[in-house]
């Protein structure tokens, strides 16, 4: 079984909500990323989402944009990210998920990219690949090894069923909680509860919510509604504002977990 689903199975037994934490690979440098990830695991993160920096991150707000551009300035390449991921995989069995814009996969070569994921990376979140454009990738992808994580938005409505059509066994569903890009200055969509409940009803895989999750309060509010909560900009911001400090990051994550 895919590490993601193994993790959710265990959490379900303990009736716990998964905490999925985000980091842009290579901000400020790749060796720091590895330390950040290890600190998060110590703090109790259940799944690690790693962003591959892209020059034009359409779905991201200013915090993650700035993080990606710092990473690119430091010379981060996909090759080096895979190298680091393989390193981390040697140390932990925590599920690792990439957030990657589609162009990066295309240019690396879809098959080559997928092959390097197998065994290391358990899921792919591709924010600019709606289900209509997924055919090519899915044809090549063994989702038991690396699951394609579907995204759903508050405006998806009639699309929810079609979106989930190819996702009945592996990975989880990523529900975007705001109309807009990632960030901390945003508010949850007005119909949040109804919308998440609707997805829960249809989905056969765990449902997680993210975008605009700022603090413990937000995590608690979402925990009752979904199987996992994704927190990104707030962590990137915490590290950026204070400089990376293993101990304070660990405590920050621990607090969110409570």
């Amino acid at each position, binding site marked *: 079984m895919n590490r993601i689903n193994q993790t959710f199975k265990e959490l379900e037994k303990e009736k716990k909500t998964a905490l999925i934490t985000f980091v842009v690979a290579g901000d400020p440098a790749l060796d720091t990323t590895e330390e950040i990830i290890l600190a998060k695991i110590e703090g109790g993160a259940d799944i690690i989402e790693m962003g591959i920096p892209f020059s*034009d991150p359409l779905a991201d707000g200013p915090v993650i944009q700035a993080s990606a551009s710092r990473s690119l300035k430091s010379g981060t390449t996909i090759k080096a990210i895979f190298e680091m991921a393989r390193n981390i995989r040697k140390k932990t069995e925590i599920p690792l998920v990439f957030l990657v814009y589609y162009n990066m996969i295309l240019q690396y070569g879809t098959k080559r990219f997928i092959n390097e994921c197998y065994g290391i990376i358990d899921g792919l979140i591709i924010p600019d690949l709606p289900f209509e454009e997924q055919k090519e990738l899915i044809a090549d992808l063994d989702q038991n090894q690396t699951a394609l994580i579907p995204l759903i938005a508050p405006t998806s409505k009639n*699309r929810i069923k079609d979106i989930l059509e190819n996702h009945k066994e592996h990975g989880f569903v990523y529900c975007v909680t705001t109309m807009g890009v990632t960030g901390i200055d945003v508010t949850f969509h007005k119909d949040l509860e109804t919308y998440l409940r609707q997805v829960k009803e249809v989905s056969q895989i765990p449902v997680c919510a993210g975008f605009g999750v700022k603090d413990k309060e937000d995590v608690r509010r979402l925990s009752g509604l979904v199987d996992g909560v994704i927190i990104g900009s707030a962590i990137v911001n915490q590290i950026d504002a204070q400089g990376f400090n293993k101990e304070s990051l660990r405590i920050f994550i621990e607090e969110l977990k409570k």
Partner: protein
Amino acid sequence: MPKPKIKICGIQSDEEVLIMNREKPEYIGFVFAESKRKVDAKIVCDLKKALDKHIKTVGVFADQPPSEVLNIAKICNLDVIQLHGRESINDIKKIKEQYDKEIWKSIAVKEKKDLQKAFDFDQNSTILLDSFSEQAKGGTGYCFDWNAAKNFSESRNYVLAGGLTPDNIVEAIKKLQPAIVDVSSGVETGGKKDQKKVKEFIRRVRTMKTSSYFLEFGGQFVPESLMNPLKELEKQYEAYKDDQAFKDEYLYYLKEYVGRPSPLYYAKNLTRHFNGAKIYLKREDLNHTGAHKINNVIGQLLLAKKMGKKKVIAETGAGMHGVATATGASLFNMECIVYMGEEDIKRQEINVFKMRLLGATVVTVSSGSRTLKDATNEAIRSWVANAEDTFYVIGSVVGPHPYPTMVRDFQKIIGEEVKKQIAEKEGRQPDVIVACVGGGSNAMGIFYPYLDLPDTKLIGVEAAGKGIETHEHASAFAKGRVGVLHGMKTYLLQDQDGQILPAHSVSAGLDYPGTGPEHAALFASNKATYTSITDDEAIEAFYLLTKIEGIIPALESSHAIAEGGKIAATLSKDAIIVINLSGRGDKDIHTVAELERSQTNEQN
């Protein structure tokens, strides 16, 4: 790609002519070859008397002597001669010499290699693909294996025949993208044309949803949040684009407010200067707000109004699209926000001031390369957040479907006017059309109506900046690879990892790392040619046109002038070339003055 035209074949009676007059296919066919639907010249002359004059007539022949074909064609005044047998290239030449109209040559397809035969015939004759049959020379009523012809439309426009019916026509078009579809028995009942079937066949073709792809280019690579807003836009656009009242309103504003039709000006001095082909300039610079951008803005804002949206956002590079959108928003009383790169705001002060005067909010974009690419990112992000009440007015043939199609449709009036104007002035169509390409909306607008006229060469001009051998240019076709940006799959300037590279051009409007997906398809299928012009060459053309014609062109359009001049010089004096003068240069005075100043300083 345009929807295919329709030919209903095998018309034999007055009743059938009446059905054709009501349903209006583009072509009807009379069979002069051996067939159960055979007619003769006398019958056809009689039938034609009652036929709607807009419907073109096709005569179908098979292995008849050229003299007989010519005789019948002349008597019946046929618009098209369709040769459905084993006619040779020589036969076609003989007929063409004496009858200067369209010729269609059929090829019977059994397997993929049969398509090779098409390349024996030059682009002057249209190819018709039909099913192969041992017994008959056509009219078999059966489909051939469509997989055999799957990519044929990339190499040339063609007519698809063989077993088409109202039930399979949509699938056939999607799979094969033919230019014309030819049907006969598929719309008959008991050997006669059945009005219901004819009507249904035509309805299915004409109401087909526009594909989100141009060959493999285009698509909708956007965050899920935008998918339903895009579907809604697509639905509304599909509904209004053929709505007569909507079209009338659009044309009303283009005429009365924009000042269309824009003149097609014979540039005598420019022609003399290059001492070659006759050069005509399509004067989009004379439009209200000074460029072609307003054509598209009027269309999109009218659509926004129909959709009940009161807020509009736009991205802008040179500021022309921003000014046009701000202008339209002021005309239709809408709130307007324009996203513009910090770098471009510096280069285009006057346009920024104009937008603010017109009541728009100009948002400075300081991310990435701080130019059009980043302004587009920011506009899309803002649209993601506000899609529920905001209309995004994209300024070029870029972005996710339906934008590239919609913007092209709102710009194709440029080429449609040229077609009429040049016919009036010269009695024929131009040999070459030249337009600059950033995203490519002015080029797509003038090219599109010419896609079915292979004799007119289409040339798109990208910005070569400081030279395509340097890293500072905007030539996506010369140096880019296929990738995904701004919701579309197209040619992009990018590094090995797929990071988008900053483009460079002296003209802010061409400073874009990609091109529209339809251009990518035209490039990949060789239906248009793409070249590039450096900053220096464009500036030289800017001075030249200003000095000898008294027209100050936009720096973007100066690229087209430079390329047009180069081509004109290589052509004979009876050749005709049309250059799309997409905008006026007032906005660039500042840039050019700066350049002069820095050159003077260098010399001192």
